[in-house]
């Protein structure tokens, strides 16, 4: 039984590490970067943009689920409707350095904008 309990505890540890502690690879935003919205995720989901400079990101929504439609960046009061199977350009204001979350209306699709040099 203690083996099963140990496996359970390790499993809990793995959940904590995988979903909360692990930092996914960063991708630098450039003008050709397209963020795909598909199967419940933004790919890439961890994007670096330069500070104090207005930039725009292009989202390509392939996911028909209604939750995928809205893209929210609450910190900057941005909310855009992503059109299915089309590219939608989302304009971001000049942002100070820091990390800002972007997500769908239900917060099931999540990504992070890292504003840094």
């Amino acid at each position, binding site marked *: *039984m203690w083996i099963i309990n140990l496996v359970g505890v390790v499993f809990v540890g793995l959940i*904590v590490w995988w979903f909360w502690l692990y930092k996914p690879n960063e991708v630098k935003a450039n*003008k050709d970067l397209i963020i795909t919205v598909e*199967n419940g*995720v933004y790919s890439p989901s961890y994007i670096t943009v330069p500070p104090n400079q207005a930039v725009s990101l292009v989202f390509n929504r392939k996911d028909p689920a*209604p939750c995928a439609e809205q893209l929210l960046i609450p910190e900057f009061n941005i909310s855009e*409707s992503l059109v299915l199977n089309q590219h939608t*350009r989302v304009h971001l204001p000049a942002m100070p350095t820091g990390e800002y979350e972007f997500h769908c209306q*239900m917060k*099931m699709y999540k990504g992070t904008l890292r504003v840094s040099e």
Partner: protein
Amino acid sequence: MKPSVSHHRCDSSAEYELLIDGANCGSCVKKIETALRNVQGVDHAEMNFAQRTVLVSGSSGVEPLINAVEQAGYHAKESVAENDEAAMTEKEASDQAYYKKLMRDMSISLGVGIPLMLYGLFIGDMSVSSPAERFAWLVVGIVTLAVMYFSGKHFYTGAWQSFKNHSANMDTLIALGTGTAWLYSMVVIIVPALLPDMARHVYFEATAMIIGLINLGLALELKARGRTSEAIKRLINLQAKTARVIRDGNEVDIPIEQVRINDQVRVRPGERIAVDGEVLEGRSSVDESMLTGEPIPVEKTQGDLVSAGTINKSGSLVFVAKRVGKDTALANIINMVKKAQNSKPPIGRLADVIAGYFVPTIMIIAVISALIWLNVGPEPTVAFAIVSATTVLIIACPCALGLATPMSVMVGVGKAAEAGVLIRNGESLQTASQITAMVLDKTGTITLGRPQVTDIVAISGYSEEDVIRLAASLESNSEHPLAEAIVASAKSRDIALSDVSDFNAITGQGVEARVGEQSLLLGNKKLMKERGIELSEQVIEQAQVFAREAKSPMYFAVDNTLAGIVAVADPIKDDSVAAIKRLQGNGIRVVMLTGDNQATAKAVADKVGIDEFYAEVQPQDKVDKVKVLQDENEIVGMTGDGINDAPALAQANVGFAIGTGTDVAIESADITLMRGSLHGLADAVAVSKATIRNIKQNLFGAFIYNVAGVPIAAGLLYPVFGILLSPVVAGAAMAFSSLTVVTNANRLRFFKVKEH
């Protein structure tokens, strides 16, 4: 693939996105960008080669840009507006296709799940004891796998993608829950020896039912969601599709996308106005109700502004286009409503935080719950552990929690927009529901803000017409608001004005001039006294009566003899009294502020039923008054008509700007009332209260599903009551929790905003 665009205006210049055709090499980028940068007025041009789009900002207008690209050897067209009808239709079509797919998936999985469940309930049990049963259940297991593939594939691919991305979502929970149930059942069939006899039970019906119910829930939610955005649809439908433009003397019907600034547009009776503009010729009444909520048509003639989306009722008008495409007031309103619909009030943020951490937490709870059952549960511990872990995973999806706030805000903000109340963000929506004190500016808010001649008293043998003709002739050289009122009064009586000479404005006292041989003098008592003009007791008494009625009396003298009194007042809006009564009836303390004198302020306050008022206040004093109220723990709403009220609007907890349908000050306040009526205030408060109440109901519903559902699923009630939730019940609860929330939000659509 056709890119679409989210278009953003900035005040100094416009931004355009062009779709480029024929650019096949990297070097084309530089050529196109250079061609565009050479166009006069272009500040910035940047091409995205991957998408074949170019973003241009500047004041050039779109046509020179298209020409420049054409001359460079490529083809370009402006990308379509995101809020046009075509985009909406396209969205509806894709939603419809997705709905059909979900319903098909649901039919397949419930087609397998329901017979299995009925078998388990009424015919036999789902245990595996003989080789024949093993074989039969193996077949069922393979069929269930097929259901999982055909009807639930999107959950598993979503979960895997999400997992790879170090994120967990609704798909993760469904995939884990159904996957665990199926895998456990297959272990029972393939290697039953691993499990005690009592635990040899299969859960294929749970897997199939959960997939079916969740697909059904998603399909119904999709339908209900469609209804929540009806306000936006109605606004979009206000946009005309074509416009009759006069070019080279000919009238041609063209799509509204092709109407350019300074085009002359004709609108015939019954037609919808295509773009914002200024009337050049014609006279008509225009129904602006869908834009402003104001039911009475507004008379339009030369020089008046008309707005896209409004309906020309009676005559033919020719107007010059001033704002087109995404810059019209209607497009701005649509954009603003859309943005507000997605911004969350503070009440929703707790749910957001919870939703953000929910899924991994639930996975941990499922593991711990399984461990507890395995360690201290009754036999068969393995079966109980599997059931409880599966049920926890399935019931816990926080989708309803995530939807609780946005769905209500979407309907509430749309509802307010239909009544001509533009709510800028979720925060002001929530604060408006808590307002305890409403500060009203007098001029332009309670009153019309446009002084009018109310009384003319003729003396010394002059007629009323003589007085107004001469006084208006004299004032035609002045730009004072009172002078405008007198001139407007003469015009409304079709009185021709005479030429004046020797015009002189006497600061703080009045004006003087000559008309022909007559010397004219119009001003206050001091002016009359200085010029030695005698004012009888009766005349002074009459002037005082006017002053007590909040009117400004002016004495008028011809050739040094008093000829009459002209009284001018800023009339109180027809419905101010009723609207203020409505606010007071809701327990809101109403306070009036005005820069006007004490007597006028008192007269107006008395008329509209306000006990608390402050006269002769400067803009800075208005801020202080708001602060004083806030110090008294009031949640203060401030209502003003613009520039001089701006500091107080900003200081207040919620600033309400009085806009007009054509010139909406949507950027200056938290909430904009598109029509002049103060009923908009009571409407805004009523809608926000109803919306916040609806959000609370939703949050309660969602929390109940999750917070109460999870412990029950984990088996908390089992030791005392012997209750352990079935995964199928959990699946149904999870599927219908979102639906409940969306349906409850939709109830708001039936909320009656207008109670006046």
